[in-house]
């Protein structure tokens, strides 16, 4: 490797990393939050079989899972202005990623809710809980640990999918790499560098997942047993 290339890589590292921290991460978190809210709403509508809304939820999921994310992004950013809806690049990306993720995670949450044994809701109904109380206090707290690994999976996927936002003028990690690659004529090195930074982000997330999963599980008998006897 030539000295020039090493210098380019070192100089460009913060120039790629900083848009990553300033844009890729906020974009990921905002999109994930929007997606989670949509997913939870769609899942609850389907589990409760709310008439009409249930059909709408199914059609929504069908469309957003059945079309490419990049096309959705283009429709929202380049297409909607034709209908008089002008959006800045960042909100357009959050909406596109969020709506897309909502469709996928709706299925994750729905199946997790349905994985909670029916006896749990029956028992809750018979101690006098209403449907919302059953969901909030019994079913969702048990569904969430089941949903957690696949949800986190989609979060890690999203980190990388945000690179698509470069195509709608969002200056994020990959956009920065593209610009430097064009200037220095070193596409191979710079795109590899971008890949490494994505890999670092995802490594941190993977470690975070492992740590959170341990925290989240309430019923590891031995551990809790020790705690409980100590409390006695």
């Amino acid at each position: 490797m030539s000295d020039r290339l090493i210098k380019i890589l070192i100089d460009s590292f913060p120039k790629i990393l900083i848009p990553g921290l300033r844009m890729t991460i906020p974009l990921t978190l905002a999109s994930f939050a929007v997606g989670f809210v949509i997913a939870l709403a769609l899942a609850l509508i389907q589990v409760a079989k709310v008439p009409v809304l249930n059909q709408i939820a199914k059609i929504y999921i069908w469309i957003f899972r059945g079309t490419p994310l990049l096309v959705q992004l283009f429709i929202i950013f380049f297409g909607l202005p034709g209908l008089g809806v002008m959006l800045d690049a960042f909100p357009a990306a959050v909406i596109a990623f969020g709506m897309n993720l909502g469709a996928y995670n709706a299925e994750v949450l729905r199946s997790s809710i349905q994985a909670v044994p029916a006896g749990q809701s029956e028992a809750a109904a018979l101690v006098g809980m209403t449907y919302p109380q059953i969901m909030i206090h019994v079913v969702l707290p048990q569904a969430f640990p089941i949903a957690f690994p696949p949800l986190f999976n989609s979060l890690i996927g999203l980190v990388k999918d945000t690179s698509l936002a470069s195509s709608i003028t969002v200056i994020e990690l990959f956009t920065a790499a593209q610009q430097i690659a064009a200037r220095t004529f070193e596409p191979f090195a710079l795109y590899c560098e971008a890949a490494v930074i994505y890999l670092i982000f995802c490594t941190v997330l993977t470690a975070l997942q492992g740590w959170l999963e341990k925290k989240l599980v309430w019923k590891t008998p031995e551990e809790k047993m020790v705690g409980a006897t100590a409390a006695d």
Partner: protein
Amino acid sequence: MLEVKNLYKSFGSNQVLKGIDIKVDRGEVVAVLGSSGSGKTTMLRCTSFLEKADSGEMIFDGSHYEMEKIGRREIHQLRMHIGFVFQSFNLFANRTALGNVMSGLSIARKVPKSEAEKIAREMLSRVGMLNRADYYPAQLSGGQQQRVAIARAIATNPVVVLFDEPTSALDPELTGEVLDVMKKLAEDGMTMVVVTHEMQFAQEVADKVVFMDKGVVVEEAPAKQFFSAPKQERTLQFLRRTMRDYTYNI
């Protein structure tokens, strides 16, 4: 006090209940006996509206309800006065024993937390589980879980408690501790309907026995009379078979 009349229920083409009548008076313990598939559990599930009856009438504390037409609000109102104990316990896996017993009070009835906890601790002590208050269901034996489930069912001060084969999922050793708790409840005057295979329990604790077979009530009699002088041939056959098993067990 609680009466169900003419209860019908089918699953598809399989008619499980063919006009069941059952009546419980205040302070009474009714044992419902019958072989598997006789419809006992379905009867209890219809009575608590976990299954929707095809038709039937319920009279509860003087109010009449048509069971096939009853609305969600009325079901909720009725459930506020009924306790239910499942064969498979169904304790909330995300809550401790104490949290389980409190839930009917603090969540469903909006009783202040401190008061709910006080009542819940009393109930746990009644079933001998106070020292396990902070344990999660997964850390308790089947018998212990069922005792907590009984505490949860009685914590809300129900008018009647329905038991759906409460000991069927337990080994004989654990069965004893649950039956002891139920016996104590009966002695304290709790109104109970107990679907069970425990003949000895029915004989010792029940005031009245209802014997079901193939979706109908074959015989209903005071417990003493039921065991000493059954009137129906089918009852006699059932008793001979189950009681012979019982002597075999010794």
